């Protein structure tokens, strides 16, 4: 009987959600992941998904007459570079599920191509960034909340399902330096239109009418200023309950608001966050209060950081003039695709076909499409060229930013199958090819 050697890698950073848990233990046998400890359901699943399966691409593919044909890296990259150089207004989108090193290469490629550069913040927490640019943001790291917060508000988010270990690591059950009794030392408020599983374990659940959060934020702010309002009820919440909440947030020692896409992607979008940030700022007249977005993809914060330190702007950047210009709504992917203003796209570790509005996806498929994607997705199967990478954070090292903008080093736990290149290497080679074709 052959001896099966188990390799265990400790302190692995989980490349799934913005919580970026850094205490996972992963067992690897014969370059296959067999066990993941400490991880949550969704994070663990991602590790297993990197094992060989029929859904994973093993070589670059080029579409010829409607069906995919295996190709060499050189051939596929050459063709991809050809498409990008010929396009008048190419779009580079994605970047949130890969490491910062690859993201910086993406910026370089966009600059050389005079392309439009965007990341998934465009369709999730982009509104958060717009609001932060308008009114600033009082925020902190998650460790600070863990050790100090005695009042936690979850507004329009459901971490029990979306960020499963957030509650036990930072915000609800964990014992902190000044919160020795964990859950008992914290008052948890959930504000959401749905009675979610997060709401069911809260101390106070406020059911707000869908898409009326702005009115509620607005009313709380006015009440905190000591204004007597004319209304008896706002957004489905009675004035007594709003006053009770206002007293509660004023009287805590250290409060924090965590908010999710329930705020950023309901009717008032960035204005919800604008009001929530103003509320947080004003609460500091009474006590200590901070606010942090619950970022989705594990490195979407990193994408914003990398894009900002290189170009000055976090997303929706246009390089067509040779220098970066920024205007979400004009240079953001969904709007560009809806108006059919893009004539080729490169999708880096993302699946817009299952997330974007159908009309914009239709326009995306009309033009040449290149996907850097390890798995079969609705986007990749409709692509003209597929460049399969190694899994960032599982099959290669790199840097990722947690939702509170703390950089953590991702670990490599196993080798990529078939010697697949990493996202960074693919983009580097693409840059070389593009430079060659442009005669630089």
């Amino acid at each position: 009987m052959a001896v099966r050697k188990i390799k265990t890698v400790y302190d692995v950073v989980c490349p799934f959600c913005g919580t970026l848990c850094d205490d996972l233990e992963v067992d690897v046998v014969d370059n296959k992941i067999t066990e993941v400890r400490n991880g949550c359901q969704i994070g663990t699943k991602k590790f297993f998904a990197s094992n060989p399966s029929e859904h994973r691409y093993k070589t670059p593919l080029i579409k010829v007459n409607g069906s995919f044909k295996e190709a060499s890296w050189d051939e596929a990259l050459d063709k991809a570079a050809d498409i990008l150089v010929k396009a008048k207004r190419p779009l580079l989108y994605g970047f949130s599920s890969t490491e910062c090193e690859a993201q910086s290469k993406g910026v370089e490629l966009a600059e050389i191509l005079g392309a439009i550069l965007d990341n998934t913040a465009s369709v999730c927490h982009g509104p958060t960034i717009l609001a932060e640019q308008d009114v600033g943001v009082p925020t902190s790291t998650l460790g600070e909340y863990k050790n100090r917060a005695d009042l936690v508000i979850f507004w329009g988010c459901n971490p029990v399902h979306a960020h499963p270990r957030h509650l036990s690591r930072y915000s609800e059950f964990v014992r902190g330096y000044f919160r020795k009794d964990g859950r008992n030392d914290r008052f948890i408020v959930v504000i959401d239109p749905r009675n979610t599983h997060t709401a069911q374990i809260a101390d106070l659940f406020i059911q707000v009418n869908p898409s009326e959060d702005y009115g509620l934020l607005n009313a709380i702010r006015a009440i905190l200023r000591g204004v007597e309002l004319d209304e008896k009820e706002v957004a489905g919440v009675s004035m007594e309950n709003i006053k009770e909440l206002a007293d509660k947030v004023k009287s805590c020692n250290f409060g924090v608001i965590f908010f999710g896409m329930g705020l950023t992607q309901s009717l008032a979008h960035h204005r919800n966050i604008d009001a929530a940030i103003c509320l947080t700022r004003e609460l500091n007249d009474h006590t200590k209060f901070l606010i942090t977005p619950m970022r989705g993809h594990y490195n979407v914060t990193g994408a914003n950081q990398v894009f900002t330190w290189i170009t000055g702007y976090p997303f929706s950047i246009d390089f067509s003039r040779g220098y970066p210009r920024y205007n979400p709504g004009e240079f953001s992917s969904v709007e560009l695709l809806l108006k059919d203003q893009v004539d080729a796209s490169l999708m880096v570790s993302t699946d817009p076909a299952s997330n974007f509005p159908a009309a914009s996806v239709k326009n995306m498929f009309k033009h040449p499409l290149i996907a850097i994607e390890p798995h079969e997705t609705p986007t990749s199967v409709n692509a003209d060229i597929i460049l399969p990478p190694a899994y960032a954070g599982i099959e290669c090292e790199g840097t990722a930013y947690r939702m509170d903008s703390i950089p953590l080093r991702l670990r490599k736990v196993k080798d990529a199958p078939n010697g697949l290149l990493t996202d960074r290497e693919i983009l580097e080679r693409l840059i070389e090819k593009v430079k060659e074709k442009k005669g630089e």
Partner: protein
Amino acid sequence: MTQVKLKLKKQPNVPLEAESITPDNFAGKNINEIKGLIVYHGKEKEKIGDYFDVSGESSEINDLKIIIEGDLSNIKRIGEKMTSGEIIINGNVGMHVGNQMGGGKILINGNADDWAGAMLKGGELEITGDAGNYIGSAYRGYWKGMENGLIKVKGKVGHESMLWARSSKGAKKFPMLICGGAASFLGIHNHGGTIIVEGDVDRCAGADQAWGTIVIKGKVSRKLPSFKKMGEINEITLPNGDVIKGKFIEYSGDHATKKETNGRLYIAA
């Protein structure tokens, strides 16, 4: 007054950025020089002559009128930063028309796309059709939007119109928007702008208004809770001295930003 006529002869494949079309750039140039001015087509530099038939003659800037014919909905930035003269557009026009203009006049006989008259510093912008979102607004991250001048829209304006408008009594700068109707968040973060709406307005008008005047002659789908009723009045005196007659309910606000505010919202009784 001398005229330069531009007639669109072909549609661009991707949006054309034509900030070179302003009286400032055309003044004192002959037709061939005007044809050679640069426009941006995606990442390529092209010329006005590639897209427009140019005729007429140019002159000094104050005496110059530019008339543009055709469907310009895919052409952006016409009249950017213009300081004098006149532009007449017969057809729909793309984003950023007349943004940051300091003087002169633009008349659009059609619809305008988003950011028309953004951060206007003076002059007059008139649109006979509808306007897109962010008309007369600040660009992302700016705290000073429209500072002076007048925007008139016959039809409806989009979301977040007149964002971060700023007036100055000392400098006699009164930015003003007159429109037929408006979508949500009209005059948000208003700091002294005047807005008059002839028709109906969607939710959250005047959100975060520090001071300023918003007059709505139609209905409001949902008023913000932080506006407080003050009473009924029969005439309104605007900051620039004009008077509007009619029965209005006067609200003060937005009280979410200030406890005592001279921000006013008037809704027809």
